[in-house]
């Protein structure tokens, strides 16, 4: 097997919320330490339908002498993830990773704001773990938005890592009622623009709304994007996203190889 390609054995694959699954994959100890925000391509069947591998961001990672464990938190929303959801303990999967560029966790400001929408919590959870280790003195606040109480995932784990978590739901069944971007906006004045790092992941409309809110502010915001992918390694150009290049001109960047993490201000929304 070539570098980066591993066979994994499913240790656990449980539905922790409606349509939301936690999969634990055991693989070789040589699997590289992933950065928060990186992803794997998971080949879910040897068949031709579904044909492509699925890009799933890494939720957690651990290793011991004998093996590594990759955790994926995913929603079964399409054909591929639904088949993933049906995989039982002991099933083997082929994985390629870790892929892409993770969040920049080096140049971190004193205040850290993490904004997640729905299953976008997956890469941000790993980011939170990392930042708590690398920047324990920072003031961290997490804004977590979900459609409703029945969709809330990954909260318990984060509560152990961060004392300051604001949960909201679209229908008000848990926490404040409203979109997570709106809840953040109400608090925005509290954060010094030049001394705050913002990290976000969630559905496209949420990130777009965040872009509008942060427009004309000096906040630095990194976002992790999702796009349909074929290769995952930068070859096919299928997962392009429209961005502004250095000179402000339109360019297409690959979510897999140039991302999935981008500066929010570089993204061009239609």
């Amino acid at each position, binding site marked *: 097997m070539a570098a980066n390609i591993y066979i994994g054995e499913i240790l656990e694959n449980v539905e922790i919320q409606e349509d939301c699954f936690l999969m634990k994959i055991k693989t070789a100890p040589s699997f590289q330490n992933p950065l928060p925000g990186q992803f794997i391509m998971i080949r879910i069947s040897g068949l031709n*339908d579904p044909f492509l591998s699925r890009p799933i961001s890494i939720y957690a990672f651990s290793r011991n002498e004998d093996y590594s464990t990759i955790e994926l938190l995913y929603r079964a929303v399409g054909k591929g993830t639904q088949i993933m959801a049906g995989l039982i303990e002991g099933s083997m999967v082929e994985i390629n990773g870790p892929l892409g560029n993770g969040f920049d966790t080096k140049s971190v400001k004193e205040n850290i704001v993490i904004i997640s929408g729905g299953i976008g919590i997956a890469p941000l959870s790993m980011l939170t773990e990392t930042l708590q280790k690398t920047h324990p003195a920072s003031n961290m606040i997490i804004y977590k938005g979900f459609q409703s109480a029945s969709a809330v995932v990954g909260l318990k784990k984060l509560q152990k890592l961060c004392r300051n978590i604001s949960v909201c739901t679209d229908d008000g069944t848990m926490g404040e009622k409203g979109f997570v971007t709106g809840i953040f906006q109400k608090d925005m004045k509290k954060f010094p623009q030049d001394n705050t790092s913002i990290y976000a992941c969630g559905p496209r409309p949420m990130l777009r709304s965040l872009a509008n809110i942060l427009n004309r502010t000096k906040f630095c915001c990194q976002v992790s994007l999702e796009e349909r992918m074929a290769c995952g*390694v930068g070859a096919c150009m299928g997962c*392009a996203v429209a961005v502004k290049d250095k000179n402000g001109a339109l360019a297409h960047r690959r979510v897999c190889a140039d991302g999935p993490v981008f500066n929010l201000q570089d993204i061009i929304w239609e």
Partner: protein
Amino acid sequence: MKTMKTKTSPKMAVNLGPLKLNNPVMTASGTFGYGEEYAGYLDLSRLGAVVVKGLSLKPRLGNPPPRIMETSGGMLNSIGLQNIGVDAFIEEKLPFLRKYNTAVVANIYGETYDEFKQVAKKLSSAKGVHALEVNISCPNVKKGGVSFGADPKVAAIVTRTVKDETGLPVIVKLTPNVTDVAAVAVAVEKAGADIISLINTLTGMSVDLKTRRPHLKNITGGLSGPAIKPVALRMVWQVLQKVSIPVIGIGGIMTAEDALEFLILGAKAVQIGTANFINPCATLDIIEGIKIYLADNGIKDINEIIGTFRP
């Protein structure tokens, strides 16, 4: 397949007229980047050839996203030939590829005859390019592309234009989106093509039930993957009956068995495309699988099996 112990590994080298390859397995343009994207997964020197992403005179932005959609047994793409341009390729990508003992084939694209000419000229004086593959078959661009490949007369002019500009072997890549692929093949052969490769992708569509909009921003895209292999085999067969220059088979090859089907028909080489996406080592697996097949059948040289089809 069962492995049989043989004292010598079968000979895999093939000659495609002026282009000599270490083995018949090439990568297909647009599916292997500029080679470097896959260099961490496999030793490029083990490939018959690396065919790079289509190069144009100036960098191209490509089509707006979303650009791909999975289909049963394949995928649609409408990348629109996003590439860094021929100058940046020569400057930034070619030096890396020169380190490998594999043929480098530059796939070229132009919106006009003159652009084809200029791209061909630049690559012909660059060190480390072994052949040009003329793309007159991209279904995803508004100018050039398939419009050059659908008309035998225009295809012939593009071929002649490139031939006049280069001393390198010229491969012409044909589109399946025509009524009579053999007519285009005959025209480009007469115009001086050294080799023909086919097929490019089949034009297709996919509709999102939630939004009732196309899955691809470009509306239509090119279908690739195992779903198209029978069409590719049929077209390769039709072309082989009408031309005498070497033919490269492309279309839905996932395994050594798939590749052997094309070789048995008479293709001198094959290109592996979409398979790379789901298995970065697909090309190597196919090379090894062909060797095993040959050994199992007591065949000492790949050339003994090429063109042995019995209709």
